């Protein structure tokens, strides 16, 4: 169960500061409710505590100086719920796009400084994102990102629904993270309703999450190759990704694994022959992926583009609350899979690259390492068939539940507040949402033509962030 700890508005900063500095907890997201409430989830090991307060006159104290990771959360709450933040100045708009340029762009001036605006419409199959670079010649001084062009209001739409119906809203936030988002949501509801997953259910969900990681990591490696125009690599990994997705379709009926997660149970099973076939196909895929990776390591013209580009310093990664492969590439030993008792990750340690340089090269290498580990995990997990088995009640109920899952891009935190068996508030903070500010940080100081490469080395979702 997750604790809901009410805090007086006046004591908000002190409560957050105590949690972070005294108890060593991590900020895991903050969100406003329709009745003027303001919540923040603090993470410690496998446990979570939700701090809550009521805004006074529609304002609360800002915590961005204590927890820099709350920057976007506060800007979003201001734009969507009209909440004011004392001490957050300037409070730049995030989702509201009507503001004039001066209000949302970082002021940068000097001789020869000019702005280069890209998007939101791009010349390829890319989601909508507007990037505004402040440059001198080819050198980027600062980057302002403006996403949230396709805000769907999924969280608002989920309010008042039965938990089983709201699952679809979490699932449709993003296709490439569908399993991670729905498992996080299902875990949050199970946490609130006192359900505990059975051993079979834990194993099934772990299999699905790792299959999702497999095709995403294959895709991301190929995307980095495309970012430097190295066609053999991007073609080889695009083909591998497609094979992984075809395996998803054969085993579970959907290339993006839609419809494979339910609250307290699992709607898909895998009989022994199917599990064996999947296991065999994954072994072949593993061998081919490793061979493809070996080819990349010998492609000198590609490797020459990766080192020292888009460096995210360890200090910045920690301060900004960066998660996932991006954090691990900078040397943060953080992986939401470690010690997660609602899933089966016994003995897993966060992957660490040979050199945690925090550049594009490190972010690429960490994916290759995790790809291998994922294949090994799947091989072990699929040694038994997957049965349809549910969760068992008996745990303590709580008004709020938190689900935490390591998606291919990092830790995704879903929080659900239940009132009379209905969803009162659902909040999905995906890894992409947590990491987007770090893209701008890692971009500063680099060359303009290297930005697509840096962006692809993070490979964040737009849809996940703009739910």
């Amino acid at each position, binding site marked *: 169960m997750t604790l809901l700890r009410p805090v007086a508005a006046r004591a908000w900063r002190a409560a957050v500061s105590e949690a972070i500095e005294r108890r060593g907890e991590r900020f895991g997201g903050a969100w406003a409710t329709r009745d003027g409430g303001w919540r923040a989830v603090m993470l410690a090991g496998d446990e979570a505590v939700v701090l809550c307060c009521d805004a006074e006159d529609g304002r609360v104290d800002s915590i961005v100086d204590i927890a820099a990771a709350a920057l976007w959360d506060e800007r979003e709450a201001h734009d969507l719920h009209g909440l004011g933040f004392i001490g957050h100045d300037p409070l730049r708009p995030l989702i509201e796009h009507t503001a004039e340029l001066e209000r949302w762009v970082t002021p940068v001036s000097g001789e020869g400084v000019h702005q280069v605006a890209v998007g939101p419409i*791009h010349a390829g199959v890319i989601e909508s994102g507007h990037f505004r670079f402040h440059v001198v010649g080819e050198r980027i001084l600062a980057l302002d990102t403006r996403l949230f062009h396709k805000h769907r209001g999924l969280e608002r739409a989920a309010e008042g629904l039965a938990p089983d119906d709201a699952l679809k809203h979490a699932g449709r936030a993003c296709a490439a993270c569908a399993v991670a988002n729905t498992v996080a949501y299902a875990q949050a509801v199970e946490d609130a309703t006192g359900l505990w997953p059975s051993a079979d259910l834990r194993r099934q969900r772990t299999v699905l999450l790792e299959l999702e990681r497999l095709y995403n990591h294959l895709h991301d490696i190929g995307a980095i190759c495309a970012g430097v125009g190295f066609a053999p690599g991007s073609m080889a990994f695009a083909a591998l990704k497609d094979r992984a997705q075809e395996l998803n379709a054969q085993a579970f009926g959907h290339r993006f694994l839609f419809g494979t997660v339910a609250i307290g149970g699992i709607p898909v099973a895998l009989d022994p022959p199917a599990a064996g076939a999947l296991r065999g196909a994954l072994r072949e895929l593993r061998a081919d992926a490793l061979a493809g990776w070996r080819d990349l390591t010998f492609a000198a*013209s590609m490797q020459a583009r990766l080192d020292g580009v888009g460096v995210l310093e360890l200090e910045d990664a920690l301060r900004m609350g960066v998660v996932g492969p991006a954090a691990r590439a900078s040397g943060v030993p953080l992986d939401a899979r470690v010690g997660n008792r609602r899933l089966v990750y016994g003995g897993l340690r966060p992957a660490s690259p040979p050199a945690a340089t925090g550049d594009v090269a490190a972010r690429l290498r960490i994916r290759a390492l995790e790809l291998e580990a994922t294949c090994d995990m799947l091989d072990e997990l699929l040694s038994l068939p997957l049965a349809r088995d549910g969760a068992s009640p008996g745990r303590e109920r709580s008004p709020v539940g938190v689900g935490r899952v390591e998606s291919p891009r990092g830790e995704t935190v879903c929080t659900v507040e239940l009132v009379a068996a209905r969803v009162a508030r659902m909040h999905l903070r995906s890894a992409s949402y947590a990491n987007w500010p770090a893209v701008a940080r890692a971009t500063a100081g680099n060359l303009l033509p290297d930005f697509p490469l840096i962006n692809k080395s993070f490979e964040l979702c737009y849809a996940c962030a703009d739910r």
Partner: protein
Amino acid sequence: MSSSALIAVAAQLGGVALAPLLPGLVQTAKARLQGRRGPSPLQPYRTLRRLWSKSSVAPAGTGAVYRVAPPLIAACMLIALALVPIAGRGPDLGVGHDALVLVGMLALARFAAAAAAWDTGNGFALMGAARDAMIAVFGEALLVLALLVAALPARSTDLRSMAAAAAGGHVWGQAAHWCGAIAFLLVVLVETGRQPIDNPDTHLELTMIHEGPLLEYAGRDLAYLQWAAAARHWVMLVLGAQLFLPHPAGFAGALAALVVAGLAQCLGLAVIETAQAKMRVLRVPALLGLGCAVALAGVATAIAGLAA
């Protein structure tokens, strides 16, 4: 007029029609090398036909510079085509066959593209034009030096004499010729806008060089520009075949060698583009500088050879 001269005229006019085939061949070969089926080599013709039947549009606020640029660039490339002899023969079309005039035509086309980018004020067009200008500072020097290596043995900058001087097997015993060939390979990559210098397939505006100034153009204007890019392939590959690749002195043999060398160079470009990722843009001058050093070594040995 002899029959070989007639064939040369026909081949030269044929260059206008055959030029789009070269980038088409490169694209097809590249797709095959990458395990894709890819478009037919005739795809550039289909694109040109489609673009030609569309009307042009101009961004608000642009003037004569923007409108004149596409036909001007196409005209420059047309003259460049007329300048380059075919199999060592060139009919007199009134523009001569001087190598330095060719350099000037290529530079004028580049200048027109940069001026048009300036006229639109489009960030990507200007960025591409600025990068192109930066690369041209080194690329044009390299082009002149490589041509000089070929001109010294001929004691003339007439492309016909240069092609004649490079015919036969004896030139391959001279170090200068090898230096010139290496330098000219880099020139081909620069002028045709191919990897590792530029990525012709990219859709990433921030990385564009030659594509950037084309972004605003549509319809007939874009057809002019795409034909001009194809003509640049033609000029470079035909020149490369006659000045720096093996060919016999006789017309028929030289023509056959030209066809083979043209196809081989298309395949070579496809192989390079498949095997090499794009370079970091600020490393390109270093590569071209190295090429200039090689070309200078070629010039020095050629002069030493002439003196001896």
